[in-house]
């Protein structure tokens, strides 16, 4: 699991699949997930689990769902107090052609 090498100011609470997590304000959701030991986030069309890979917005394998139904790249989504995200890997959608 990713661990910080310095002390961290976990000043906010975000919710991952409705579970409260203490996090650093402005940190990317992907980084927060990794520090929670969560590597499987998204699910590919073949239903295989995927997770943060590039951390710079190019691979689109860290997609999470926001409260309003929008999907975002977790590595491009920056944590704010009370933010709720859901992991598609826990609720797969769409059929493969």
């Amino acid at each position, binding site marked *: *699991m*990713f*661990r*910080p*090498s*310095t002390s*961290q100011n976990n000043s906010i609470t975000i919710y991952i699949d409705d579970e409260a997590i203490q996090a*650093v304000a*402005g*940190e*990317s959701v992907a*980084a927060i997930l*990794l*520090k929670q030991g969560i*590597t*499987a*986030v998204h699910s*590919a*069309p*073949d239903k*295989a*689990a*995927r*997770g*943060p*890979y*590039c*951390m*710079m*917005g*190019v*691979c*689109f*394998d860290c*997609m999470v769902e926001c409260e309003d139904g*929008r999907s975002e790249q977790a*590595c*491009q989504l*920056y944590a704010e107090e009370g933010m709720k995200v859901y992991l598609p890997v826990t609720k797969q959608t769409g059929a*493969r*052609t």
Partner: protein
Amino acid sequence: MNTALHYDLIIIGAGPAGMSAAIYASKNDMTVLVLDDQPAGGGQVYRHVMQNDAAEKKADFLGSDYWSGHKLADEFTRSSASLWPESRVWQITKEREVFFSQKGKAHRAQAGAILIATGAMERPMPITGWTLPGVMTIGAAQTMLKTSHSGVDGALFAGSGPLFYLTIWQYLNAGFDIKAVIDTAPGKMSLLHYFWALPALLQPSMLIKGLKWRSEIRRKTHYISGATAVSISGDSQAEALSFTDASGKQHRLEAEHIFLHQGVVPSINLTMATELEHRWCLRQLCWHPKTDIFGESSVQQIFVAGDGMGIGGAAAAISSGKIAAMRITAKARGTSSLNAVFQMVRQVQKMAIRPFLDYAFKPADEWLVPPDENAIICRCESLTKTDITKAITLGVSGPNQLKSFSRAGMGRCQGRMCGLTIQKMIADHNSQSEDKTGYYRLRPPIRPLTVGELAALADDTPTS
């Protein structure tokens, strides 16, 4: 429609090239808008440098090269250029209209000139198991260090290249245990390549730095060189990495976190979707936008700078950003571009080491196209090498036609993760050059935007 914004110069990307261009142009009374994905300037190389500084330099382990970016980022922050953070540019027109979304809202802006400084991305390394959770790029590992001061103990590192060694060195500095470093660099260059690499001697400090990283890694980690046939296994998470060492012996090392790297390539989605002309670079095995000596592309008043025009590294990017800004300013003012020409001399010096790096770390064929037929090539659509081969043998002339045949490149990443691999597979199959094979026809939007964001641009929608 939202009220259009007007700027003399719009810069896309606040990395070294974008920031240095913004500083120069704004100092010379140009109105400058900078659009960047991230919450602050820095780009990938100086990512989070301002925020880290505000936290009293807690991240010393990143080294002096990283911290040298602070001065640039600070000067950029204090310049009159306006940065719109967390902005995703999804279309540029040849008439220099820029469309982008910021926090769920789409905007349009008009520019006198545009500078595309979208930098580089890591070359995809499509080996067996690279899609498993727990497998990330070396850049991702470094991003975790920079933005979260976080790493994992017991990880495996497989690949080669300057960023590979730098990040491992930083990992050691930060006090993380490394299980093993599996170096895939072939370790041999031809005599001709040594000849072409001679200019590297003009940058001895760079060479020494690299050797220092490598020797420290050799000393402090379980280091295996000359590795081939690297593959990752695991059920729903990376579990182990297998490879063959230089002597032909097979190894299997267990780890839940594995970091891969095979160098970096220009991010071409924006330059290609803007229909700038590109050429295939045989030395760097990637596409470069065609530009003049100042960075002006095949479309007038659209410039490219930094790694996005060809991999040159941070120092060269700073310089090329400045050259482009000098030229853009001179054109706007109708003055001479002589200062840009002088700047170019420095630019050439800063690029001296590049041929050496390109030859020394040129990825072997097995990292470009996996030998394993079951390896996934297109991550978005979960397509294996077999799927792609099947489509290619139907007789495709290029990657674009392969899209409809196989769905490769039709997913969210818009070909970023499979484009180069598929291009090479088709080129090899058709026995033709990469240049002739071509790439996907990339079209806007180059970043996904929601239906709602686009709907809000509908003309008869009242803006609130």
